[in-house]
């Protein structure tokens, strides 16, 4: 069954706090305005994230336990909405410091890493020496926040995700996107855009989710690893639409559309453009010195890519996944 969701393009001229929702991945406010700790330092972004399980009803009616993130107004406030992918962490061109405080309402330890941004990574190990987490963990039900600071920022599109047992926790849904322009309305130096679209890819294997949620995942239990990962749901911005396409409306003709792709899933995906070819600007938040044209964008697991094109008079279609 094909499903198509309504075109949701974010205009560069809108303030991030007014960002339109992209599927269930909310373009979230940065928390600058309301947070006393950062009111004085507007170049600093402060985000409270809460990791917690929630139930998502899939289009076929099946309820699947997901792990996701909510953005709260303060640690313990619990006023955010859980989603997977989690809320988009919005950085501005002049943001010099990102602080994320994590609350863990899961029943296992979890943590946060942002692929591609410089960060302190003190590994947490199992008693036998194997690494369990790439960085400091938040214990289940932590009463004090665990803080992650990123003070070497650069323009780009990045994937944030759990750094703890990522082979199981990422596919449970603990992932999201970070974006930072080089200037207002500019993706990278000299690459201006009028409108912006962020597409975060992930997949769900409901059997695995059931096993994890039901305490049947782990050594000696019914499911011992994610080696038999067989996703049944293919999500773009948290919705099961990957078999479909995104309509770039002809009303956007002549406007420069930036599309940021983030693959938070474990499979490769290939967005394919029709009626337009696009300038591939960057991979993993690193701009190409000489961008080239593409129609198909190969997105292996963990990859981010940014493309830019001027919408033709006909509009354009973006087949979410030619590998689907």
């Amino acid at each position, binding site marked *: 069954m*094909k499903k*198509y969701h309504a075109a949701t393009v974010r205009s560069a001229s809108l303030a991030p706090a007014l960002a339109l929702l992209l599927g269930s991945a909310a373009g979230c406010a940065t928390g600058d305005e309301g947070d006393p700790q950062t009111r004085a330092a507007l170049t600093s972004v402060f985000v409270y994230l809460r990791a917690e399980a929630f139930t998502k009803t899939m289009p076929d009616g099946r309820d699947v336990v997901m792990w996701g993130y909510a953005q709260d107004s303060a640690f313990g406030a619990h006023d955010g909405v859980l989603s997977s992918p989690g809320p988009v962490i919005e950085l501005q061109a002049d943001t010099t410091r990102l602080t994320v405080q994590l609350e863990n309402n899961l029943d296992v330890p979890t943590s946060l890493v942002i692929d591609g941004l410089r960060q302190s990574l003190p590994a947490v190990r199992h008693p036998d020496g194997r690494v369990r987490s790439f960085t400091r963990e938040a214990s289940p039900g932590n009463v004090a926040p665990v803080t992650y600071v990123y003070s070497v920022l650069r323009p780009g599109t990045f994937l944030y995700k759990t750094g703890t047992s990522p082979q199981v926790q990422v596919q449970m849904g603990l992932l999201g996107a970070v974006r930072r322009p080089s200037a207002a309305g500019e993706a990278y130096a000299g690459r201006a855009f009028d409108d912006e679209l962020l597409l975060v890819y992930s997949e769900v294997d409901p059997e695995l989710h059931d096993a994890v949620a039901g305490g049947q995942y782990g050594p000696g239990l019914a499911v011992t690893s994610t080696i038999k990962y*067989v*996703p*049944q749901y293919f999500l773009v911005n948290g919705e099961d639409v990957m*078999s*479909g*396409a995104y309509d770039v409306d002809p009303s956007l003709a002549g406007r420069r559309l930036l599309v940021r792709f983030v693959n938070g899933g474990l499979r*490769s995906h*290939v967005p*394919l*453009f*029709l*009626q*337009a*070819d696009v300038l591939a600007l960057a991979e993993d938040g690193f701009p190409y010195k*000489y961008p*080239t*044209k*593409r*129609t*198909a*964008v*190969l997105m292996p697991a963990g990859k981010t890519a940014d493309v830019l094109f001027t919408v*033709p*008079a*006909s509009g354009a*279609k973006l*087949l979410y996944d*030619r*590998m*689907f």
Partner: protein
Amino acid sequence: MTKHTTSMGGAMLLALALASFPAPARGAIPGVEGPSFSLTARAGFVSTPEGGSIYSWGYADGAGLMQYPGPSLLVDEGDVVTVTLSNELPVNVSIVFPGQQGVTALGGVPGALTSEVEPGGTPVTYQFTAARPGTYQYFTGTDTQLGVEMGLVGALIVRSATAGWAYGHADGAYDREFLVLETEMDPIIHELVETGRIAEVDFTAYRPVYWFLNGRSAPDTMVPAGAQWFPHQPYSCMPMSHPGDRLLVRLINAGRGLHPFHTHGQHMRIIAQDGRLLESAPGAGADLSFLRFTTTVAPGGTEDAIYSWTGDNLGWDVYGHRPGDPLEPGEYALDHGKPFPVIMPDPKDLEPGPYYAGSPFLGVAGYRPPVAGTSPNAHAGYVFMWHSHKEYEMVNNDTPPGGMMTMLIVEHPDVPVMEM
């Protein structure tokens, strides 16, 4: 040393070859000439080398048989291309043309990506201007997941205004061109569709066991194009070359999987992706091109590669020349006259493979033990495998060798290269 072509039966073979294959001036990709096409989506059966016969869907050229892949559409830069699609399948079909802009669709019913033709419904006419030369593909824009798997894919080649150039720059100059279109199949899905059980198709259990180049699995890739026992698979995939020829390899991933395509003998220089020359600025040439010995084309995407074999840097003369002998066309001069660095073993100590013609030298046949049989390598060419480097894709439904594999034959300059 005696050149095979002037010794033993070589001259006779050469004469036969000349008689049966009047060599065109340059290699050309077989297909249907545009700019107007009439395609019909219909069903047929794809043959696999181990004896399989798989119900498939494909595009036919007008009233012709279903083809896998569909007809290669050959047009010239600037052509106004029209493709009229009729449909004899039990489901809606359509065509999308990635890389083309301003594609219009007239007739049919609206679909998610483009207008569609209902079963037996009024045809749809797609029209666009082939504004830029390059290698492209087309496929069904209707239930693409199932349609692509069933075979509704094909190549679109927009020839440059300058003959012999793939793109509007000498960096795309070529002597011969070849199509390498990758696909794969899971026959369980095809059986379900054949028996009217489309609703049971489950792509989460998708497991292809056949892999194809230009619609054929090895060794059928090396059977000449148009062989009558492949009524639905008219295209072969057997590149041939003289030393120094620039082969334009038009790589298309028309399937859904990733296929690391690996060439033996020489690297490929990737000069274009998705029909766009890899250039830093218009007119700069392929200055962003790069060498690869394995390239993975994105599904739905294309790459153009220049492959040119001279045997450079081998450190010995592939012709077995003496230093005073004249250079052959395309010969790597720095190794001219350098001796073969191995003392050849006694022939009775050899167990030659099928392509070993009896000497290490290009175009020079030698003694093959009778028990080894006759080599199909009649002119003592060099044979290099091109294949998917996912080794499990080199089988036909668990039967190796086969799958996504073929051979390049480099022939001595005196041997006419057959167009396959």
